[in-house]
Every structure is written in structure tokens, then in C-alpha cells.
């Protein structure tokens, strides 16, 4: 009810007024921030929640008896409760805070993988993965003598080939790790279907939600995955904090990866008993301010509504794809505007003859922040798309059509500077 109401009144200008950086200038021009797949901007509510913690109730969490320690503990735990609700986990026991998505995946590769992946076992990932969901598995495979397999992309070079998935599952992989949304192509993978297929073959499933959780409703129980990972800084929260969701029974059986304070129940000179979930996996003082800031970010996202955010991004992505497709000598990657249901707000592109770093530099001179490079997905960009690098625009809830227009003007400036066409 509340969300439907918000949807009708989705007010970009009001949202923008919450983000102080969006009224600043870069190189003398009003900042147009189109690098949201790398990191998002932060609203005042998040910045103030962090500042407020440090100013008024800074204390270490857990065992403190005094009031501000209790307050800090509550705020940190509350943030997990909020995140558990946001992704529909069964409870905050299933939410482990990490530094970021990368660390969350590493915990699974080291903890679960270290104990369960044996010589000759198969690990299945896809050709679409970010390095964070590729390198930990490559290392695990090398360490334990396992085989790393890849689900291929189909002929469109935009989607996973479901035939390839079926074939690879015949190897009976122990774990399948797949990205929910590609940070290069924007493709939304059918992770529910993939999870079901993988489970049919007895595999455990990890979904990398770094690019999905910030932009759409996520329901880990509906997906059915065993692990789900995300980063706070891509969803309006601070850097330095991310999360690993894991099904209770799996996390419960896993040994911790990092050890020390806070993650134990009791220690003798000869033995140790692990703390309850989720604390078993959080050794040492965590990023308390980060957790609190993340909680404020989740409040902010809920205030707008994930469905409204997704609808807004669909609209602006459609507008951008239409605008860009009309520009000569410019090529976009990933699914087109007719496939918005299967596509997030990430648009990679290249301009004939011009290196993406030069494109990005000209955009910078116009006050527009975009990213250029292999986007931490070198095998995808180089071996599948056949480019050494591409430029990338990525949207969030505060972007508006006039910013797309400015990006399109910058493309014309690139073409003029480099005498394209």
C-alpha cells in the first residue's frame, strides 16, 4: 500500500535533494554521476547516522553494560534485522556482516569450500562473473585440486546459455556460483531457475547480488539459493561493509574463517566453542559505524520502495538505450530496450576508434562520471565481447533523463574531438 502510493509520487528532485554531492560541480560543471555500478552516492540520512553514532553513542558493541554500549549494540543488530527483512531472510542469524561482497564470497570459498571441495570435484561458475565471483573459486580449485567450469554465454553475448548450464550440471558440481545481475551487460539472470536446476543436481548455490540488491526486490527464500552476497556501498550505505546471507543450517555447520574475539562462546587453554550465528563469523570489533550507516541506507531504500526504484531505473534505461541507439558509430552491449524485464540499469558501450579511457576523460571534462575499463570482468570483456575495455553508464534512483541528455552530448563531443564519422 505504502509502496504503491510512493510509486505514484516518485519525485526525483526530492530524492536528489537528500544527496549533497549531487549539487556539487566537477571540472566546473554540475556533477552527473553515472557510475553507480561501482559505488552509489550517500543521502544525508546515512551520513548523519554515522556522524551521530560517533558524536553521541560511540562504544564497542556486545558486552558493554553501560547505556551507550547498549545503544550501539542495538543499532548494529537492528541494521541486520532490517537487512534480513529487505532480502527476506528468515532472521538476522542468517546475516553475516563482511567488508563487502568480495569478502562474503571469500568466506564461502574458504569456509564452505575449504571443507567440502575435494580433489576432482567440480565448481561451476559462469562467463559473466565479476572477478570477485571468479578468482576465489579459481584459487579454491587450485588449492583443493578441483575443476573450475563455466556456463557459457549464448549467441546474443548477453545471456547465459541454459543448454550450457544443463551440460555443465552433468558434471555434478558441488557448488554453483552465479551473478544475479551482470555489472558489464546489465543482464538479470534467472537465478531462481538456475538454483532449482543446480539443487536438482545436489549442488549448493551462491548468488552474487552486488548489482541486484541495490536496484530491485530480492527474496532469497523465493530464489532458494544457499548463499547470497551484497555490498552496502552500492546501495546508498557506507563503504567497508557488506553482507553474506546463508541458510541457517549451512552456516551452522560451517567453521568460521576468521577467529578471535566476539566469535567465541567460551575458550579454555585447550578448546573453544563457537558463538551463535551470525556472530560466529564476525571476529573482532566489526565496522559498527558501517553497520549503522547501512541500516540507515536500508531505511531510505524502504522509504522509496524497491519496486519504485526498479520502475524508475527501467524507465531511464529505456530512455538511454533509445537515445544511444540513435547515435552513429556507437555500439551498446547487452540486451536491448525490448528486454527491460531482463535488464538492469547498466549500459556498456563503445565508440568506433576511440579508446574507452579517452571517452571517460572527455566525459570527465563535461562533469560526467562514467567508468571505463574491463570492469573487473576481464574474461567477459576480452574473450567474449572482444574488447580490451568498454565504457559504462550505470543508473540509480536519483538519475534523471536530462542527465542522459548530457551524456549523449558528451558522446558528440568525443566524436568531434576524435573526428569520428
Amino acid at each position, binding site marked *: 500500500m505504502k509502496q504503491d502510493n510512493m510509486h505514484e509520487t516518485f519525485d526525483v528532485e526530492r530524492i536528489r535533494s537528500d544527496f549533497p554531492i549531487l549539487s556539487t560541480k566537477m*571540472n566546473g560543471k554540475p556533477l552527473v554521476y553515472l557510475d553507480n555500478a561501482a559505488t552509489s552516492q550517500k543521502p544525508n540520512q546515512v551520513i548523519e547516522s554515522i556522524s551521530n553514532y560517533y558524536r553521541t553513542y560511540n562504544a564497542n558493541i556486545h558486552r558493554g553494560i553501560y547505556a551507550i554500549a547498549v545503544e550501539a549494540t542495538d543499532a548494529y543488530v537492528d541494521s541486520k534485522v532490517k537487512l534480513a527483512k529487505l532480502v527476506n531472510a528468515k532472521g538476522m542469524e542468517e546475516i553475516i556482516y563482511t567488508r563487502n561482497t568480495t569478502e562474503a564470497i571469500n568466506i564461502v570459498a574458504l569456509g564452505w569450500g575449504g571443507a567440502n571441495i575435494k580433489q576432482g570435484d567440480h565448481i561451476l561458475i559462469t562467463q559473466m562473473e565479476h572477478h570477485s565471483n571468479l578468482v576465489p573459486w579459481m584459487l579454491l580449485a587450485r588449492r583443493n585440486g578441483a575443476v573450475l567450469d563455466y556456463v557459457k554465454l549464448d549467441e546474443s553475448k548477453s545471456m547465459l546459455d541454459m543448454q550450457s548450464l544443463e551440460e555443465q550440471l552433468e558434471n555434478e558440481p558441488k557448488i554453483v556460483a552465479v551473478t544475479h545481475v551482470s555489472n558489464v551487460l546489465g543482464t538479470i539472470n534467472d537465478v531462481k531457475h538456475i538454483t532449482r536446476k543446480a539443487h536438482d543436481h545436489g549442488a549448493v548455490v551462491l548468488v552474487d547480488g552486488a548489482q541486484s540488491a541495490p536496484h530491485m526486490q530480492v527474496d532469497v527464500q523465493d530464489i532458494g539459493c544457499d548463499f547470497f552476497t551484497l555490498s552496502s556501498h552500492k546501495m546508498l550505505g557506507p563503504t567497508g561493509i557488506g553482507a553474506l546471507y546463508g541458510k541457517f543450517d549451512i552456516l551452522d555447520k560451517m567453521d568460521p574463517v576468521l577467529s578471535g574475539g566476539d566469535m567465541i562462546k567460551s575458550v579454555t587453554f585447550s578448546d573453544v566453542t563457537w558463538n551463535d550465528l551470525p556472530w560466529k563469523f564476525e571476529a573482532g570489533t566489526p565496522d559498527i559505524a558501517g553497520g549503522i550507516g547501512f541500516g540507515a541506507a536500508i531505511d531510505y531504500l524502504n522509504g522509496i520502495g524497491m519496486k519504485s526504484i526498479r520502475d524508475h531505473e527501467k524507465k531511464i534505461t529505456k530512455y538511454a538505450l533509445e537515445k544511444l541507439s540513435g547515435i552513429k558509430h556507437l555500439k551498446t552491449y547487452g540486451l536491448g530496450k525490448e528486454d527491460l524485464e531482463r535488464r538492469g540499469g547498466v549500459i556498456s558501450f563503445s565508440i568506433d576508434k*576511440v*579508446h*574507452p*579511457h*579517452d571517452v571517460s*576523460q*572527455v566525459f*570527465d*571534462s563535461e562533469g560526467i562520471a562514467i567508468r571505463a*575499463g*574491463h570492469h573487473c570482468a576481464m574474461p567477459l570483456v*576480452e574473450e567474449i565481447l572482444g*574488447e*580490451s*575495455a568498454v565504457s559504462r553508464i550505470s543508473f540509480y534512483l536519483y538519475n534523471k533523463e536530462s542527465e542522459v541528455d548530457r551524456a549523449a552530448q558528451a558522446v558528440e563531443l568525443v566524436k568531434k*574531438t*576524435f*573526428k569520428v564519422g
Partner: protein
Amino acid sequence: MALDLYAEDIVSHYEHPHNAGVMKDADASFHNYNASCGDDITIYLKLDKDKITDIKFKGTGCAVSVASASMLTDFAKGKSLKDVEGMNVKTIIGIIGIDPGPARLKCATLSLRTLKEAVFLYEHKEADRETKAL
């Protein structure tokens, strides 16, 4: 760093690089790669004792890296190996005529690093720290 990075001579060197191509009978050569950009360059040297009599480069990259390679190879022709050993960041900024700024410095210095590594390799010397930091 605004558009002056794309001064006319940088763009024209990028479009029509000098000394581009492979040298089959090179006395010294070195291949280098900038992973963050995907820039890739090989520099070839023809030597007469310690003088560079001819120089070529082959590679792909952004305007800054290709134009720098084009201008550097022009500059290096006729220089001695000792001259090359003494080249540094200031040399390359002087050659291209602008400071590319921290985000693009690696693009500008890739060709110089490659040239110096080719020379050090030819001389059976370990590249010095300054060269490796380019």
C-alpha cells in the same frame, strides 16, 4: 584534466602514429601491458653501438598512450642508450607537452617504461626502481 589533453597534436599522433610497425631484425625489443587499461605495446630498436638508429612500436591503447609512444619514438631516434637510461617522467611530460594528471599518467609513461626496459634488457641490466615505477 580537461580537454587540453586532446590538443590537436595528441589526436593527430593517435590517428597517424609515427614509427608504427614491427621491426623484424631488431637488436632489442620489449613488450609491455597495462592491465588496468588493456594498453599493449612492443618497442623495437635498431642499434649502432650505443646509438639508436631506428625505432618502431606496435600496440593498441588510448590516445594518450599511442600519442606518447609516437612522440617518444621520434624523440629517441639518434639518442644513446645512456640518454634513454636517464629519461624519466619529466622527459615524457616534456615530450607530449602536457601533464596528463594522475589518472592518465600510466598511459603516458607506458611507452617510456617499455623503451627503458628494452634498453636495460639489451644491456643485461636489471631495470632500476624509477623505471619500474613508471
